[in-house]
């Protein structure tokens, strides 16, 4: 049968593309444009938030009398460095994992978010343009999904997002008409008004959730800021053990802006809360993380 198949596949191997491949120079130009566009997006996000970013890590401790810490846009919209040999799979099976079977009751609710005109966005926000969709896969240029063993153990991923005010409408409008059922992180980053929150819930095979936290720690502890050239991004774990079986509160610092990310594990489930462009305070996010942990199943 294999020989029979080989004959068929030989014919397919000789099939030319519908149009000639573009010259290598054009591919390089396309890559260059893509790179500058991504860095430009980062610049937009930072410009949008720099005016708010006046406090540093010290204020994140939530000391009395200090203003809530400003939250900067994500440090990177850089492309995911996908798998070289031995990388986590990107299979068609991943399509179904995006439409997670994770129970809806595991998520925060709009009411949990407290004051403000929060509303859940109709579509989910993806960090990447395709699986494996994971915040930390793009958090550091020196890391690729292949560097994160837990991704191969992930069974399901589900995402929800919320926004406030006109910003929430604008985010959805930005992606309207795209024909897809998810929002790009780009639109999320670009929006300047209101608060935006993304919650990811990852369900793992046995041992995968603990590994996941270890992967996060490794990014935080080993990411080389110099990978960003002379304009480094740095991460720091500023609080642990505040919720669930394991938990990390991480700051992402770029210049004078700081962003908060909470990662909480309960059993084989990990939830990640990431805020965009907000002035939310540390204690608010910690409380949200505890509520989120309480919703996760122990099994």
């Amino acid at each position: 049968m294999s020989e029979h198949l080989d004959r068929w596949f030989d014919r397919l191997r000789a099939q030319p593309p519908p149009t000639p491949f573009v010259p290598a120079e054009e591919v390089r130009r396309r890559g260059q444009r893509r790179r500058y566009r991504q860095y430009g997006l980062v610049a937009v996000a930072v410009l949008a938030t720099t005016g708010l970013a006046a406090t540093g890590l010290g204020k994140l401790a939530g000391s009395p009398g200090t203003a809530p810490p400003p939250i900067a846009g994500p440090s990177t919209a850089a492309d995911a460095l996908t798998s070289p040999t031995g990388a986590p799979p990107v299979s068609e099976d991943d399509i179904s994992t995006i439409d997670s079977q994770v129970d809806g009751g595991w998520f925060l609710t709009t009411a949990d978010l407290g004051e403000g005109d929060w509303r859940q966005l109709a579509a989910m926000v993806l960090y990447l343009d395709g699986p494996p969709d994971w915040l930390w896969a793009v958090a550091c240029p020196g890391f690729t999904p292949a560097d994160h063993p837990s991704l191969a153990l992930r069974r399901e991923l589900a995402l929800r997002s919320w926004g406030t005010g006109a910003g929430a409408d604008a985010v959805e409008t930005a992606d309207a008409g795209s024909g897809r059922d998810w929002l790009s992180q780009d639109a999320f980053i670009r929006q300047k008004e209101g608060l935006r929150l993304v919650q990811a819930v990852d369900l793992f095979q046995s041992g995968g959730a603990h590994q996941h936290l270890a992967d996060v720690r490794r990014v935080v502890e080993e990411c080389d800021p110099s990978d960003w050239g002379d304009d480094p991004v740095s991460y720091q774990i500023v609080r642990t053990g505040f919720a669930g079986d394991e938990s990390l509160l991480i700051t992402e610092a770029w210049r004078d802006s700081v962003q908060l990310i909470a990662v909480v594990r309960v059993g084989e489930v990990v939830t990640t809360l990431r805020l965009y462009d907000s002035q939310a305070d540390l204690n608010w996010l910690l409380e949200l993380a505890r509520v989120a942990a309480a919703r996760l199943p122990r099994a």
Partner: protein
Amino acid sequence: MQPERRQPRVTGVEDQASFDAFYRATRQRVYVCLVALTRDPSEAQDAVHEAYARAWQHWSRLKRYDDPEAWVRTVARRVAVSRWRRARNRLLAQRRAPAPAAPPEPDPDAVALLTALGQLPPAQRTAIVLHHLVGLSVADVAAETGVAEGTVKARLSRGRRALARLLETTEEAYVRAP
């Protein structure tokens, strides 16, 4: 603040030459893999171009990999998967529909194979394409798709049986044709 300072590192002329050579040497193989998976030549070609553009972004590191083609192939598959997800409803409908239009003046055998591949479940199709078309070993297919080797073998076995049935039907049709 000058956000323009946040620039990527400069890639040298030598990198350009090595990238260009790599692109010319591997693009057809990656394209054929993608077209077998997507059954859409235009979509496949665009995914391939996109993957190589991304490869150029990171070429200073990728060039040190043992097999940068595997990286490009995986990225191209991811790009295609992403597009599949965006058009999921359309694709679900296509499962019951005839194969999409073939490229201009296609080889009938190639079209028949693409049509047959399109009738396989995605996991089987991926295993068959990576093993029989790309030429990866069972172990490499397992590594690239993130499943156990036994799972790959099972998918290959089932996929081959299904393909044989589908292609025999095609051949019989040719024989019967006037």
